[in-house]
């Protein structure tokens, strides 16, 4: 276990931000890291993959733990746990993609501790909440030394386990715009087992329809690229179209082409790419049926 760190349990958000801010003369030293649920970070400390100089515990920041599902959309504090998502009937109705991802997220104890902000911040390509949130067009609220800013989740990642956060910035909120009438969203996690598994391919889709045509489509893919990503070309194929089987098939193939998977112990790149097409086709079909 990496043990060469200070642990500061922040009393409130200001305290947390002050503690996360790089101190003068600390240039070049490993950064401070926020510790929320710890379900990834403690594992990384134990494996010495994370070696921060300082950990800032944000477990006491109850103000960051809230979930609101209403006409204004879906919004939540960064410390909202996966269990909080799972236990919200309103979320299950409004965002089955996100609720469904919560259900197949790790095991109960991890869900009880793991936070939405943490799942986004960990940067894993297989982070299960990210594709649904991307499909829901989520944006991330960052607070830091330079103030508050909002970043679309689709633009958040800059590379494998890299993101746009500046030193000292903390994810505080996640917001999704209102879900218009005639919309549907779905997620499917393909894994090597049903319970507590790392995702082989995760696909989330969201469709908005009007007058028998697709007004907007968002397709997000997990575990098939260095970062979770949107299949924008596939989305463009769908926008304005009537979603018959050939249109859906074309979009599914396009989504597969957007993936850049690797071979690993769970599956080959080829299988992953094929499954992006299969799952995208199925989810689009079901979502379209749900709207129609």
């Amino acid at each position, binding site marked *: *276990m*990496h*043990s*060469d*760190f*200070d*642990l500061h*349990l922040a009393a409130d958000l200001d305290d947390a931000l002050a503690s996360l801010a790089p101190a003068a003369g600390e240039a070049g030293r490993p950064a401070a890291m926020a*510790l929320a*649920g*710890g*379900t990834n970070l*403690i*594992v990384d*400390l*134990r494996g010495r993959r994370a070696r921060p100089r300082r*950990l800032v*515990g944000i*477990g006491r920041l109850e103000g960051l733990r809230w979930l609101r599902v209403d006409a204004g959309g879906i919004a939540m504090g960064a410390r909202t746990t996966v*269990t909080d998502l799972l*236990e919200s009937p309103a979320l299950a109705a409004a965002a089955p993609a996100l609720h469904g991802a919560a*259900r197949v997220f*790790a*095991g*109960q*104890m*991890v*869900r*009880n*501790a793991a936070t939405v902000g943490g799942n986004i911040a960990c940067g894993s390509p297989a982070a299960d909440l990210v594709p649904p949130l991307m499909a829901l067009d989520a944006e991330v609220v960052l607070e830091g030394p330079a103030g508050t800013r909002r970043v679309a989740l689709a633009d958040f990642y800059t590379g494998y386990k890299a993101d746009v956060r500046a030193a000292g910035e903390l994810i505080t909120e996640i917001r999704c715009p209102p879900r218009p009438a005639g919309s549907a969203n779905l997620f499917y996690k393909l894994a090597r087992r*049903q*319970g*507590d598994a790392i995702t082989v391919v995760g696909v989330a889709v969201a469709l908005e329809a009007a007058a028998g045509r697709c007004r907007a489509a968002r397709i997000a893919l997990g575990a098939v690229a260095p970062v979770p990503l949107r299949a924008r070309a596939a989305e463009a194929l769908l926008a304005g179209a009537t979603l018959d089987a050939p249109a859906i098939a074309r979009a599914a193939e396009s989504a597969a082409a957007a993936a850049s998977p690797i071979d690993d112990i769970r599956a080959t790149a080829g299988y992953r790419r094929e499954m992006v097409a299969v799952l995208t086709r199925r989810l689009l079909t079901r979502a379209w049926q749900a709207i129609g």
Partner: protein
Amino acid sequence: MSNERRITLEINGAAETTSVPAHRTLLEALRGLGHVDVKCGCEKGDCGACAVLLDGVAVDSCLTLAWQAEGHAITTLAGLGTPERMHPLQQAFADLGAAQCGYCTPGMIIAAESLLRRVPDPSEDEIRVALSGNLCRCTGYTKIFDAVAAAAAVMSGKGDAR
């Protein structure tokens, strides 16, 4: 090495004080204080053997730092009941043969208790989802599902553990 600090943990209703460094996990701290009913299976949150209740909610004590647990009520398996006065889950696990080697049992019962505190009358699917982070190699889970359902019935006054 990280700094040591004296912390006071509320464990099974009693306050206990210990001096631990920042990197000490709650699992290590609890076992160090003699609460060896909390089991170590993987230290990665993959198996659930170390589960304890933190303010009534199950967490993996291997993924919790001891300092973080200060100010929260910690409940381990031994805090739920004794051989003389068993908790309904303990009684049902014993009566229905849901414990074999018994090593996963502390975490399994804690996870089940965490479920039943929120969902008093769970479906089998809810039981399965709630226990999916607790690995068991001996039982095939069948008798565990039965035991959790039986305990739920007892706790909600709908039946006895057998």
